[in-house]
């Protein structure tokens, strides 16, 4: 299945940061959802800002337009403001992208655990994201960092406990 570009991607002004505030807000909104959809489609969990500027995401070859770096910066600031992005360094060059927030992931995982009757059992992290049982689930192949964040969120709600089993990390779920 190839990625479905939104109509904005073929609209030249999309690649110029709009000076009018109302318009810019809408533009950034469209960019944000495009970035999220794109990462979801390609299963991207961490972004290197410099690298991604070179990809088709910010550069429409057919139109011969590319979003300038201050535009990209504005898009990422907007994503950060909406809590879809978390920076991994002070210089803001690499970040996690959450097409779902860790809280949403946590809910998905927990629901799956409940529906499969795995409460009070221990699963390895590998099982959750790479195992055969989760093949059809949306969190299959989830980045480990993001998974841990989701599990910590569950832990803070007293619904899970992260445990170290030898050199494997596991997690136990509670009612």
């Amino acid at each position, binding site marked *: 299945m190839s990625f479905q570009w939104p*109509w*904005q991607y073929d*609209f*030249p*002004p999309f*690649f*110029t940061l*709009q*000076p*009018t505030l*109302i*318009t810019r807000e*809408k*533009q950034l909104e*469209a960019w944000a959802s495009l970035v999220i959809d794109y990462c979801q489609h390609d299963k991207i969990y961490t972004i290197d800002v410099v690298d991604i500027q070179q990809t088709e995401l910010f550069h429409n070859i057919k139109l011969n*337009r590319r979003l300038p770096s201050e535009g990209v910066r504005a898009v990422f600031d907007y994503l950060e403001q909406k809590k879809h992005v978390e920076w991994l360094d002070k210089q803001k060059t690499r970040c996690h992208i959450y097409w779902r927030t860790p809280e949403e992931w946590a809910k998905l995982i927990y629901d799956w655990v409940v529906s499969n009757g795995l409460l009070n059992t221990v699963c390895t992290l590998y099982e959750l994201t790479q195992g055969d049982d989760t093949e059809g689930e949306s969190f299959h192949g989830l980045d480990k960092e993001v998974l841990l964040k989701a599990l910590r969120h569950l832990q803070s709600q007293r619904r899970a406990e992260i445990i170290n089993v030898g050199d494997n990390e596991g997690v136990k779920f509670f009612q």
Partner: protein
Amino acid sequence: EQNTRTQENISQAFEDLGKLMEMAKDMVSISKSISEKLRLKQGEITDDETVQFKSYLLSLGVSDPVTKSAFGSGAQYYEKLANELATILEKPLKECGGMMALPDVYCRVNRARGLELLSPEDLLNGCAMLVKLNLPITLHHFDSGVLVVQLKSMSVETTIEPTAKFVTDSDSATAQELAQTAGISVVLAKERLLATEEVGQICRDDTIEGLRFYPNKFAEAQTAAS
């Protein structure tokens, strides 16, 4: 023979000039001292006196803005000028879409006069009086610093709708294209586009090829997508 005569003529002319300059210097120093006195006497002076004094200053070409602005705002001369501008410009303004940049106005007025020309400053001061006198034309100041004279009935705000329509009909437009179609100057066309952009009717595509404006599909899509 001939040469010596012209030489004499020239040197005489220069001497006269020198004398004239000295006279003017006296006038300047006198007018300065008068304005000093006026400042001291403030309150005991009637309007007419300062007005008269101002017209003396003007005829000399001495600019003394501080004291000028201290007594009333501009001379009667400017008011008369403003009235004249209103009568001269109303028709041409209607013909060219209700707005004219100040340099164009300057050209037109001075072309029409032939003699007794206006200085740019006179024109500007005259235009500044337009608002006060409640005439059918006004001076408008764009954020970009461009000054235009416009009909009160045809301000920028009223041109937003047609401008947006023009951009929509032609899918996208540059200032040049709008200028050609509407028969206005490029400067004005750009101002119109910017004003239309300001209210979110159109959006821009800024590339090395130039600045193009498109209908603001971002705003429209909002209703369609959600």
